[in-house]
């Protein structure tokens, strides 16, 4: 089974093996990682994942789970249709809505990363220290080194952010409004808030 010459798993056995590993993983699993562990070519694993996801999506009875790729990997999720039932059992408050302030700050970080708090403040017109701390605590953003100029801490969104929003990559973010004014001009404006 661990013979390096021969794919270890194939066909329905591969489906089962992938399914079994997905049951015990804590984090989203990249296709490549599964392929390495199983000793199977990446395309075969990709096919298996797609087949498992489709099996759930096309099940004759309403299924309680779905398999999705988000935040850099695949993972089982409970099906949204059963959210009312599931919410009572999930304790970590994931259902809590983000405040408007948190959403706006998250949006600026998502589209302008890596970005300093001073820059975010300049765009939003308010002090954002407390909101950024909250986003850090919730694991939605993380530090991304220091600004080359002023040494201000920079922030970026985390892979948990992607996963939590059901996005595979940052590229999946919807485009910013097309009427956004000329960025170069605004760089200057933003720069004024940097001193913070």
């Amino acid at each position, binding site marked *: 089974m661990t013979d390096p010459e021969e794919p270890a798993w194939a066909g329905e056995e591969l489906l089962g093996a992938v399914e079994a590993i997905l049951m015990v993983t804590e984090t989203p699993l990249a296709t490549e990682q599964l392929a390495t562990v199983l000793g199977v070519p990446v395309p075969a694993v990709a096919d298996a994942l797609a087949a498992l996801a489709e099996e759930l999506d096309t099940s004759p009875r309403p299924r309680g789970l779905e398999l999705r790729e988000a935040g850099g990997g695949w993972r089982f999720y409970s099906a949204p249709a059963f959210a009312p039932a599931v919410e009572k059992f999930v304790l970590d408050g994931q259902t809590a809505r983000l405040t408007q302030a948190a959403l706006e700050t998250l949006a600026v970080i998502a589209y302008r990363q890596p970005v300093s708090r001073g820059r975010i403040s300049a765009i939003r017109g308010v002090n954002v220290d407390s909101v950024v701390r909250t986003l850090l605590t919730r694991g939605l953003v993380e530090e991304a080194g220091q600004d080359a100029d002023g040494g201000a801490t920079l922030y970026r969104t985390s892979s948990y952010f992607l996963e939590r929003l059901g996005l595979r990559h940052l590229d999946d973010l919807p485009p*910013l409004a097309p009427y956004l004014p000329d960025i170069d001009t605004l760089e200057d404006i933003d720069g004024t808030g940097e001193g913070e």
Partner: protein
Amino acid sequence: MATSPDQQPPAGPVTAEPAPATYVATAEGQEAETVSDRPVFQVRLENFTGPFDLLLSLIAKHKLDVTEVALAVVTDDFIAHIRGQEAWDLSQASEFLVIAATLLDLKAARLLPRGDVEDAEDLELLEARDLLFARLLQYRAFKQAAADLDTAWQRAGRSFPRQVALEPRLAALLPELVMQIGPEDLAQLAAKALAPRPEPAGVDVSHLHAPVVSVREQAAHIAGRLRRLRRASFRTLTDDAGSTAVVVARFLALLELFRQGVVAFDQAGPLGDLSVHWTGGQDEQIDVGEEYDDYDDHGGQQTRTEEDQ
């Protein structure tokens, strides 16, 4: 943290937010109904996450395009909203005041006769307007993006990831832990984690607000000079200002003095030097500041505690 203005409940769409009393009269019937039983001026700043938010909301209320805003109306409303605030977080107040000052500036410019753009000050004014609109447009774009994120957040929030502890059978397979630390190390780690964390760089914004420029003080200063000089240009009155904040404060002070009827303005031509002359008595008391400076009563720097931020 719990009392932070940023922890407010999520605000609805701009148009659904409670409006100052000034809107009740102008709002459409349906909106008026929902607003009518609110006491006058019971608008809380917490409904708006910042000055841009307020500005956008006012623009929406008046159904104006952001690029061709009837500034006079919006400016009046903006100032009215600011006046309606009872308690201010200083760092927020300064942002609101900057916007208010810019709006006032632009409103004032509208009252001037239109001419060719020649004067440097005129250009500056246009620049200030463009800058304000650019920032407002940018904010509006991010507000829209925030709404998109909210939609994605809520959709994804209805499905929960499987992230469970390892089955006992599998956990038993894990290699025996090497406990690389002893009790003393553990205590040190705990102390480090529990100790007050130094505020991350950038949290201290006190230098941005110090010194706070008091309109009341600037009014007294200007009144003193005008009593002596009888007549001076705005340029002269601000030649020793030292910072933009002081210039703005003196401009506001002049408007206040004008309202009290102790100064008059005079301008040779459009965009010419603004000449100010004292029309009050030599010993006339001035009474400026209760509107502009009452955030001072809330204590400036000292009260800007953690909860306020």
